């Protein structure tokens, strides 16, 4: 069976049994095998139900915000979870000593909807093997290209493992450089086409706040966008621009590129294209090689006397 899962259950079980954590955050069984859900194990029994398979999709870091109040929490962390935790620690919202990180090497999570569509029938299991994904269905195993099966957020991922962990479930994988092809493609359009692109997407926004609630960087006690002086509860396109502009700016230099906002969005707005634009410009203007990984000094929290004037030098790129 699944050795990783067994090992995780045992690690989590003993952490709980020894009282080193009061809670362990991972995945547990959902309504369907392809949809495991976030799982908060409080004892060894519950740890025995932890799931670790390629369907483990959603980010977990954000849960630390609520779950560390009662004492240290354990968490199974992929790269995205690790960076999310770093974000929370940098923002002083979670103490690093309040979290026990079990690091894993993630090869990407399978999108249950994509899998269902490709297989044409319910999917019970999945295996990521290099560039292909094998899906287990009642009719046998079917193989598909990785790029068709994974969650969008995993396709762009450059961080298979967290940067630090308290223990490792397996050998961590090194990080890579993030590319911003989607941003570059959009930059090539004219202003009116770009506006049309964003208007088309933002028109669908329901202002359900799923993006905000999923985001490890949106961790404020209170949100300025709930203040009616900033944003009334009207839902015109201009308000959506205000909401998403402000949100993107608030996470500029802080977004960890976990892609949870976009995954959580019920209407499929390509929110990461907003966040990635800031990342790309921070990289290019301020020479921050990996702006999605929390920096010692936040890109917007300091300056250099010889910073460029991006509005002058930026003209040719747009």
């Amino acid at each position: 069976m699944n050795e990783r899962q067994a090992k995780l259950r045992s690690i989590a079980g003993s952490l709980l049994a020894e009282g080193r954590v009061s809670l362990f955050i991972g995945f547990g069984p959902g309504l369907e095998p392809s949809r495991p859900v976030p799982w908060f194990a409080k004892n060894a029994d519950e740890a025995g139900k932890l799931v670790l398979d390629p369907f483990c999709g959603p980010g977990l870091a954000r849960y630390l915000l609520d779950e560390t109040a009662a004492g240290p929490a354990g968490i199974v962390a992929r790269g995205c979870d690790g960076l999310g935790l770093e974000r929370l620690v940098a923002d002083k919202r979670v103490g690093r000593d309040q979290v026990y990180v079990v690091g894993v090497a993630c090869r990407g999570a399978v999108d249950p909807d994509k899998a269902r569509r490709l297989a044409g029938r319910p999917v019970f299991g999945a295996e990521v093997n290099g560039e292909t994904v094998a899906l287990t269905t009642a009719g046998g195993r079917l193989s598909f290209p990785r790029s068709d099966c994974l969650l969008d957020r995993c396709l762009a991922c450059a961080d298979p493992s967290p940067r630090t962990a308290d223990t490792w479930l397996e050998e961590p994988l090194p990080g890579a450089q993030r590319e911003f092809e989607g941003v570059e493609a959009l930059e090539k359009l004219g202003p009116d086409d770009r506006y049309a692109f964003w208007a088309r997407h933002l028109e669908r926004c329901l202002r359900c706040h799923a993006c905000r609630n999923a985001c490890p960087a949106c961790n404020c006690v209170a949100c300025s966008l709930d203040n009616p002086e900033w944003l009334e509860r009207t839902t015109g396109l201009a308000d959506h621009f205000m909401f998403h502009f402000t949100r993107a700016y608030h996470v500029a230099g802080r977004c960890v590129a976990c892609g949870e906002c976009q995954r959580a969005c019920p209407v499929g707005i390509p929110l990461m294209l907003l966040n990635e634009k800031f990342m790309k410009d921070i990289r290019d203007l301020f020479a921050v090689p990996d702006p999605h990984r929390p920096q010692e000094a936040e890109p917007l929290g300091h300056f250099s006397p010889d910073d460029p004037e991006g509005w002058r030098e930026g003209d040719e790129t747009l």
Partner: protein
Amino acid sequence: MPRIGVFVCWCGLNIAGTVDVERVAEAARAIPGVVHAETYKYFCSEPGQNLIKQAIQEKRLSGVVVAACSPSMHESTFREAARMAGLNPYLVQIANIREQCSWVHTDREEATVKASAIVAAMVAKVRRDEPLEPLKFPVHRKALVIGGGIAGMQAATDIAEAGCPVILVEQGPNLGGRMAQLSETFPTLDCASCILTPRTAEVARHPLIEVLAYSEVREVTGYVGDFTVKIARKPAYVDWDKCIGCMLCQEKCPRKIPSDFERGLGSRKAIGVNFPQAVPNRPVIDREHCTYFEKGKCGVCAKICPVGAVDFEQTETVREEKVGAIVVATGFDVLPREAFGEYGYGKYPDVIDSLAFERLNSSSGPTDGVIRRPSDGKIPREVVFIQCVGSRDPDKGKPYCSKICCMYTAKHAMLYRHKVPDGQAYIFYMDVRAGGKGYEEFVQRAVEADGALYLRGRVARVYPEDGRLLVKGVDTLSGQAVEIAADLVVLATAAVPREEARGLAQILKVGTDEHGFFSEAHPKLRPVETMTRGIFLAGSVQAPRDISESVAQASGAAAKVLALFSRDELAADPLVAAVDESRCSGCLACQPICPYHAIEPKALKDRQVASVNAGLCQGCGACAAACRSGAMKLKGFTDEQILAEVGTLCL
């Protein structure tokens, strides 16, 4: 419901000539919350102000907008008028419809529409204003002066003479600083100790000055008027209260060590004072070189001391003081010996720096004032002075001009010639910078009366040849390379901040420039102040300075301190930042952005939040723009106010 009054000024024809002021008032009356609007020829005049006061009282106004000239002209006038009428002055806003409207537009219609919009925006702003009171801080009328050189002593004396107590902290064992090392001073050639010693004695016996020698400032908290300072007294291993200053210990101490004070040219004892006239006249044990501390035996000093003052067990003590203002006067140092291998500095004993030359010249120095070269004690017949060693050298030294070297080198050439009449002084210079009273004349005297030969150019190398030092330089005026066989080479090395200054800057939270000199608040208009209110600068801590400039700046700093101390409490503009703790997540993204270090974390029961020290905040609002949740509010310029202005101006 707010009750706003709008007062549209004609400013004679300055406004009314272009803007239809009656229409502006009419439009204002239509704005919800405006209960009064009127126009007048000159609201800044006495009768104009009376109209405003009258309206405030009669209409029970809760806010006032004066549409007139720029707020830089009459904001304070109208706020004062409001205050006299019983309205909080911070509930007055100015709509600038003159400089930014009537004077720059000609189309009456356009100008009137724009003026109305500006008035509406200020109405929207004033509706969101809250009454504010000027911040008040108590003033401890006691000053801390850091540094016991000429600048620090001058500042301390000036402050104490005005009747305010001063704590003067000096890190070395005695007062005097760099000036105590000098022989004579330019441009008068009077002897440094002759003018310094009386000043030192005056400081030492002044009833309002407490000298804490051999001490360091370790921690500073608080803000202008109310600083708390921790001062550490380093162990001298001598109880200075018991000591009577007989210096028997120094006389009998068997251990001789090279003296830093003498720039390595002379020696001192492991216990003793730097120079005979030192104040306080109390010895210090150099622990690193003391035989007792090295080997556990000796103790000659303890045995000989008639009052039993030597105390090998002495430890550091720390005391806390409350002061209202701080003057920093920590002075300068010169570039270390390692620099400039091409001159053999540190390698050849007869290549020395200018401070060492001062000691050679000093009658209390290692040669009793006879100029002898260090290698063999001979009197040098030819001396080469090299200026700009490490100064004006962005590639390997410092890019700036050290300012004092031109003058002291001319002085050295003169003093040398006075003592060695058949000697010859050569000075390699790049430009002679002698701006100062009597300075140029002084340099010319060195040339005319004392025969110093000025050679315009740098020296490339110095190396020994036939028992002398061959100096290879150039005279760019004749376009010829020049070689001089010298007996002594004196380098005018760059003046740099003292090594401890950087740490002190951090303790004081005062900025420094890239070289480590302390930054003034404004290079022209606030040259003795720092960006932190209540902390002032004197002397070379800010940039290389000569004695007269240091003294002048010290008196300037003292005047600033006394101006502060002339009040019982300090009032400050209440337009500062404040934290809405219920909205603050405590991420402290605001903290690195604050140029005044005014933001610190504060622990609440369940989490931490940011808190603003109103005494340090200057109200720039950079923190408010960095705050995502809107918890950081800049009073008078809140998000709500600016948003309301934006919304109104766009209508």
